[in-house]
Structure formats: structure tokens, C-alpha cells
């Protein structure tokens, strides 16, 4: 659309009201944007304007009438991180003024120095991650009690972080990390992609920092604060895992190494570990659960949990549909705004033409009328666009919660895996015990005992003891995960209710405000053309 000069009002593209923004963010640290530096990759103008536009949207509105009271800038929600996205978790932590803000910026190309045959090696992108916080664990560098620090990380590090969190926080609803993109390296380095990823990373880390439990995790702290190479164990790929496991397997099968899992191992899930035999046993157990005649020794009995699970399955379905329709709504609003603008433009041209070529006064009158309509149409078009920009943010809540359902599935999977471990161990124990019984029965028939059988029995009893320990741990772990599930689901419900409520409210207020503005614009034109009204003949 051409930039049309309208008689009244400021040019919205550059109008920024810092006061509005500051008062809202007073409880948070001032977020400064390190985009001022030279970015070889990122497009300065686009990311800057993105931030500017969020300011503009907040403060352009001079709400009339009713909207005066109720209409307030979108960023009234306290957000850690930059002010342009709504997070599913909105609580600043319970400790009143604790905060943490994370900014991801300054993507740079780096080269992997490898000794491979391919000269030049891999290039990849790193991002500057700047954290500002007053949380105790991070230490503080100035008298305000807050610290600020930066590290450089690549996406692979983020994957590692996510994996380690998944290991440590079983049963929790861990915010899903941004997708790995399997695209060619050409695309990887395109500005648009890098910018998208930068944004996604920022959102992700901010969400992690908003989770009441995870924000305190050592893994996160280390990721955010420790310079140089990320000191978290990386997830070795399946191949080397399989290789390690394959080496152990024969020994396990032939009884040369201890084939019982220890208490320590019992606390970790079987999948992703190196113990192939354990994986195999648990698989056998899960098949027995599904197809076996007898009921497994321990089952998921929590009715409440089962109901909850059902409900969440429904919720996910509804969310998916709502999310889709929300996108449709946003598009329709955008389209009508665009067309309204083009209509205005067409009438402006018509009016200009008639004015220039006017021979009769009737033409001048008509041109003036057309101009009124055109001006109103252009204004209305602008309002549609602005309203829509807000709508996108509000309805984003739906998309966010849909994404969170993934985390729910993971949390439930943690639970069922832990249960499976327990069941497997119980089955194991029962089979070990029956072997001991058999041996006892057999050796009791021999007078004086059976040296080899006794030795075997001792070994088995030892195995039983270790396995008992493991079982106890596994049960504890299972209970722990169940408890995590319960707490997290409760938190999910609470926060979801809150966020959905805010979403509706925000959406509605936004619609009301802009509809009022649009109505005013057209009412004015109707008044100005009232001489043509049919009833006035």
C-alpha cells in the first residue's frame, strides 16, 4: 500500500511512547537490546523494526470512552524476556522480586575445526545468550544484587540442555525445545531461518526460566553462565550406544557380569541407556502386560489420573482445532484490512482525478465525498491491521498450550516407563526367588548339601538382595514421578485457566477498542454525508 498522508494523527510507524512501556516494566530489569552491534548474519532493520513495532502497538492507542477504562496496552502481563510474546507461565516467582531475563542475539557463523578429510569443515551458527538475573544461585556482580553475563552457544548445545533436563526432571512438564530442522546447510544460514531460530531460542529459554522448578536447575544455570564449552554430557548418538551395549550383552547373557541392574540404574529409564539386556527385559514385560494372561504385579490404579489423562486427550484435540481456526481468523482479519486499504486508495485516486478534471461543481462535491470515504477506509484499514497484530499475540496462547501438550505426553511417558521398570524388577524378583526355591528343594535331597548348588544359591541370594534394593528405588522413583505429574498437572490447570482467561479477556478488549475506533471513523463520514440520507428527502 502506498503511504498516504492523512490529515490527522501521528504517523504511527515512528511514534514511540517510552513512558507507557516503562511503567509497565518497572518491576523488571530494563531490557536493552544488544542488536546495535554489527551482525554479519542478522538483518538489523528487520529485528529492530520487530521490536519497535511492539512498542508502537502498545502505545499508539488513545482509547476513547469505555475503552478508556478497560483498554490497556498488551504488555501489562509481566514477562521475563523481551516484551513481545506471551508466555504460558506468567508468574513471576513466589519470591516477590526475583527475576530473570534472557536475550538471544548476535548470531555468528563459526567453523568447526575438524581433522576430517573434508577441508574447511562444518560451519555452524552460534548465538549470544545474555542473562540478567537476581537469583541467588547465579551470584551477583553489582550492589543491586543482580548479575549480568553472556555466553555463546550453538543449537546443538540447546539440544543437549533439553535432553539433560528431560533426564533430570522426569514427570515434569518441560517446555518443548525448538525443532531441529533437517535442512541443507545452505538454508541453515539464511537470514530468515537464523532469525526464526533466534526468536524460538529466546522464547524457549525464557519459558525454562519461568518454570518454577526448572528455573532453579543446575543444568540451566550451567548453560546460561559457564563460559566456553558446555559442560553437560552430550547425548551420544544411538550408534555408539548400541555399540557399547552390544559389547556388554554377551557377558550379561552368559552370566559373567552382574546382570542385575543396580539401584542407581533403576532410577534412570531403560531407553537411552546402554544396557541392552535391561531394555530387552522391560520390553518383554510390557508385552506381557499387554498380552499376558496374568495381571502384572503393580498397575496404574490411580483413577483420578486416568480421568485426567482422558480429559487432557480431549483438550489436546480441541486445542488443535481452535488453534487452526484461530489462524483462519487472523488471516481473514488481515485480508479485510488489506482490501479496505486498497478500496481507500482507489477512491483517493478517483477523487483526485475528479478534482483535477472538474468542469462542474457537482464533480467537486462528489470528489469531496469520495475523499471522505477514502480517508475513512484507509484509517479503518490501519485499525484492522493493528487490531490483528494484537489478536495474533492473544491467540498465540492457544498455540503455546498446544505445544505444551507435547510436554504432557513426555511426562506421562516418564511415568509409564518408571512403572514398567518396577514391574520388570518385580517379575525378575519373583523368577529369581522361584529359582532359589528350586535349588533349595533340589539340594535338600542331598545329604550334607551340594557344594555347587549352595554356591549358586548364595550368588542368587546376593542378586536378589541387589535387585530388592533396585526395586525399592524404582518404586520410590515411580512414586516421585507420580507426585511430579500430579503437581505439574495441577499447575497446568491453574495456569491454563489463568492464561485462557487472560487470552479471552485480552482478545475481547482489543476487539472492542478497535471496533469502537472503526465505528467512530465511519460514523463521522455518515454524518458528513447525511444530506443524502433517504429519510431527509
Amino acid at each position: 500500500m502506498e503511504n498516504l498522508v492523512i490529515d490527522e494523527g501521528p504517523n504511527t510507524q515512528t511514534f514511540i511512547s517510552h513512558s507507557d512501556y516503562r511503567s509497565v516494566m518497572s518491576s523488571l530489569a530494563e531490557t536493552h537490546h544488544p542488536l546495535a552491534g554489527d551482525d554479519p548474519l542478522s538483518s538489523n532493520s528487520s529485528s529492530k523494526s520487530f521490536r519497535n513495532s511492539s512498542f508502537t502497538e502498545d502505545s499508539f492507542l488513545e482509547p476513547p470512552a469505555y475503552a478508556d477504562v478497560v483498554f490497556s496496552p498488551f504488555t501489562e502481563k509481566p514477562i521475563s524476556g523481551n516484551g513481545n510474546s506471551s508466555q504460558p507461565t506468567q508468574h513471576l516467582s513466589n519470591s516477590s522480586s526475583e527475576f530473570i531475563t534472557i536475550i538471544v542475539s548476535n548470531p555468528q557463523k563459526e567453523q568447526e575445526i575438524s581433522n576430517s578429510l573434508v577441508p574447511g569443515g562444518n560451519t555452524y551458527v552460534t548465538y549470544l545468550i545474555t542473562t540478567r538475573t537476581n537469583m541467588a544461585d547465579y551470584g551477583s556482580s553489582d550492589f543491586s544484587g543482580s548479575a549480568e553475563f553472556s555466553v555463546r552457544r550453538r543449537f546443538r548445545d540447546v539440544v543437549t540442555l533439553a535432553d539433560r533436563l528431560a533426564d533430570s526432571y522426569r514427570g515434569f512438564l518441560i517446555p518443548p525445545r525448538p525443532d531441529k530442522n533437517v535442512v541443507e546447510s545452505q538454508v541453515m544460514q539464511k537470514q530468515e531461518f537464523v532469525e526464526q531460530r533466534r526468536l524460538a531460542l529466546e522464547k524457549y529459554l525464557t519459558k525454562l526460566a519461568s518454570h518454577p522448578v526448572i528455573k532453579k536447575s543446575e543444568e540451566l544455570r550451567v548453560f546460561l553462565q559457564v563460559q566456553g564449552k558446555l559442560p553437560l554430557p552430550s547425548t551420544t548418538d544411538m550408534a555408539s550406544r548400541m555399540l557399547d551395549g552390544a559389547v556388554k550383552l554377551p557377558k550379561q547373557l552368559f552370566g559373567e557380569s552382574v546382570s542385575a541392574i543396580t539401584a542407581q540404574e533403576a532410577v534412570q529409564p531403560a531407553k537411552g541407556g546402554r544396557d541392552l539386556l535391561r531394555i530387552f527385559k522391560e520390553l518383554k514385560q510390557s508385552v506381557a502386560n499387554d498380552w499376558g494372561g496374568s495381571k502384572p504385579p503393580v498397575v496404574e490404579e490411580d483413577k483420578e489420573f486416568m480421568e485426567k489423562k482422558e480429559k487432557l486427550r480431549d483438550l489436546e484435540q480441541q486445542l488443535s482445532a481452535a488453534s487452526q481456526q484461530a489462524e483462519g481468523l487472523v488471516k481473514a482479519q488481515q485480508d479485510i484490512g488489506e482490501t479496505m486499504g486498497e478500496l481507500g486508495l482507489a477512491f483517493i485516486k478517483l477523487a483526485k482525478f475528479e478534482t483535477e478534471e472538474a468542469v462542474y461543481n457537482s464533480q467537486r462535491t462528489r470528489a469531496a465525498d469520495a475523499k471522505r470515504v477514502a480517508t475513512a477506509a484507509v484509517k479503518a484499514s490501519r485499525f484492522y491491521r493493528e487490531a490483528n497484530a494484537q489478536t495474533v499475540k492473544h491467540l498465540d496462547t492457544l498455540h503455546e498450550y498446544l505445544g505444551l501438550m507435547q510436554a504432557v505426553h513426555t511426562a506421562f511417558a516418564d511415568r509409564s516407563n518408571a512403572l514398567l521398570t518396577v514391574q520388570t524388577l518385580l517379575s525378575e524378583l519373583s523368577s529369581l526367588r522361584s529359582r532359589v526355591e528350586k535349588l533349595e528343594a533340589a539340594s535338600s535331597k542331598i545329604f550334607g548339601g551340594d557344594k555347587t548348588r549352595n554356591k549358586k544359591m548364595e550368588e542368587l541370594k546376593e542378586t536378589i538382595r541387589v535387585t530388592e534394593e533396585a526395586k525399592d528405588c524404582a518404586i520410590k522413583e515411580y512414586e516421585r514421578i507420580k507426585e511430579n505429574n500430579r503437581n505439574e498437572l495441577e499447575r497446568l490447570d491453574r495456569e491454563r485457566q489463568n492464561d485462557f482467561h487472560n487470552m479471552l479477556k485480552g482478545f475481547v478488549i482489543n476487539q472492542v477498542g478497535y471496533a469502537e475506533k472503526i465505528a467512530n471513523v465511519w460514523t463521522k463520514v455518515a454524518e458528513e454525508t447525511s444530506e443524502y440520507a433517504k429519510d431527509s428527502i
Partner: protein
Amino acid sequence: MLAKQRSLSGSGLSPRSPSSSQPFLSVSVTDPVKLGNGVQAYISYRVITKTNLPEYRGQEKIVIRRYSDFVWLRDRLAEKFKGIFIPPLPEKSAVEKFRFSAEFIELRRQALDTYVNRVASHPQLQQSEDLRSFLQDDEETMERARSQDGGIFKKKPADLMQIFKDVQSKVSDVVLGKEKPLEEADPEYEKMKRYVFELEDHLAEAQKQAFRLVKRHRELGQALSDFGKAVKLLGDSEGNQLGKAFSDFGSQSEMLSFKLQKEAQDLLMNFEEPLKDYVRAVQSIKATMTDRANAFRQQCELAETAKLREINLEKLIVMRSDKVPEVEIECKELKAESEEATRRFEVIVRLMNEELVRFQEQKTIDMGVTFHDFAKGQAQLANDIANAWRSLLPKLEACSP
């Protein structure tokens, strides 16, 4: 006679009191009915005439007419009233499927009603005999008249003569090296011609956007309906207060969807259609411009021919030829024809100037009404939207978690 004609679907002369001494002629096109089968199916309309004019037989007459009858009337008027901007007819629809949709039928009915009323309220056109035939003749007479006037073969003998002479003069033009088509050298008229052509472009663009706007309203309505339904379902699975809020939200969303569809319909009838009508009117002016150009050419050619004959006559007189009396008569006839052609041309010029003033004034009123209704409609819609969403706020406040 009424000086100004308001709105598109107004009636002809003042229809207030049939029994008053004020002359009036009021026509309405109503009641579309589909007749016939298959490919030959068509729509017939009821045309109701109420009048106290003496030229009409009776105070009220109802006849059945179809689209091609209206075309017949338009063609006759175009032929007899050169220089007048004949009110435009709605287009024939090319798309078969659309031809019988309720929307299309109503749009066409409205446009035909407007057309007839414009004819009936035009100071010259309303005198037309053909109008009277159209409004009064029974259906069989109408059908005969319609089938007689078959397309390009409706030229009368005099016209055929003219065509022959045109060809003749063209040949002489070529021979004499005068190949350029004859055009008026009037700068003001040139300006007016350019204006008309450019105006059409601007209007066409405006109409295109108006049509798109109709579509956008429909799409937004659909999107709101779909979204509302999805939100309702979401609320069902939430239960409790929040669920109720979602449910109310969904209901409002669906309600607004209706309002948007309705506005889309209004826009189609009362915003896009008038713009289309405006474009048609400009095209009608272009047709008159063509008539004027033809008349100008004829005038020039006949004048030329008459002059040549005069010169010939003088030669013959000098030669004392016995063809003189014959040629004398020819000269007289040609002179008369030339004067007639000049007169015809001048009538067209005069009429066009009057029509142009009338046209501009009428269009200002028409567009004024259109703009006003458009603004009103949009304001109403926006207010409805604001009210609908606003009504949810107290409920949302109440169920604050």
C-alpha cells in the same frame, strides 16, 4: 417534472397521490419467476405501471416482461434518441450456473427496476412511444416486436442507402487522399472524451475493490463462525466458569458471523452494484460519443457530397447540358440531406451538453447516497461488533480465576 431523481430504486415521477392533478408515471419491476425448461429457461418479471398521463391507456397496467424485452426497449431508445445517455442495462450473465441464483436474480431485478424508472423520469425519454409499448402492450405484441428487430438486420432502407453512400464517400476520400477519419476539432470535447475514458478506469478499479470487500466480509464471517465453534468445544472440555465464558464467547462469535454475512449482502446490493451501475453509465456515454462521431462524419461527408454536386451542376449549366434539371433536383435533395445531417449532429451536441450536466449532478447524488449508506452500514457493523464483545466483559470479570 421532478428535477432530481433520488436513489437507485426510487420511482419515476412523484408517486404520492394518484388522484392529484400532478402528472405522474410510476413503474416497478417485481416478482421474478423462472419459466421454461433447460437451456431455454428464463426469468420473467412483472412490470407494474401506475400513471395519470393521457398518452397511456388506463391508470394501471401490469405486463409480463423478460430481459430481452428490456434490451429491445434500450435498443429502440438508443436509435431514436441519439445524444441522450441511455440508462444502462445490467449485463447478460455469462456464467450459466449463476444465472438463476437468488442473488443474481435480485440484483438484476433491482437494476431493471432502476433502468425503467430512469427512462420514465427522463424528460425526453419518457415521451417515447416505445416506452409506452413496452409498458402496455400485451405479451404477444411484445414478442412479435422483439423478434422483428433482429440484431444488425434492423436497418431501414434509408439507412441502407446511407451505408452505401458512406462506402462511396470513403472511396472518394481514398482517391482524393483524404484517408484520415474525420474528427471534431473541439478541444473541450477532446478533454471530455479523455475524461470519460479515464473515469471508466478509475470506477472499474473502485468496483473491483468493492467486490473484493464483499468477499472479505463473507470470509471473515466464516472464520468467526468456525472459530466460535472451536472455542465452544474447548469450553466444553474445560467445564466450570471458564467453560461457560468460552461458551458465551463462541456464541457471540457465531452471532457476529451472521451480521457479517448480512453486511456482505448489503454491500453487494448497495455498494458494489451502484459502482457497477456507474461504470455502465459511463459506457453508455461512450456509446453516445460514438453516435456523435458518426453524426459528425455523416455531416461532413454529406456536405462534401453536396458541394461536389453543386460544382458539377455549374459545369453542366455552362455546358448547357440537358442533364441540368435532373442534377438540379439532386442538388436540392443533397442540400436538404446535408442540412438534415448537420441538424442531427447539432442536436446531438446540444443534448450531450445538457445530458452531461444532468449526469454529473445525478451521479453526485447517487454516489452521495451510496457513500452515506456504506458509511452507515460499516459504522453499524463496527458498533455491533463492539457491543457483542463488550457484553462478554462483565461475565469474564466475574469468573476471574
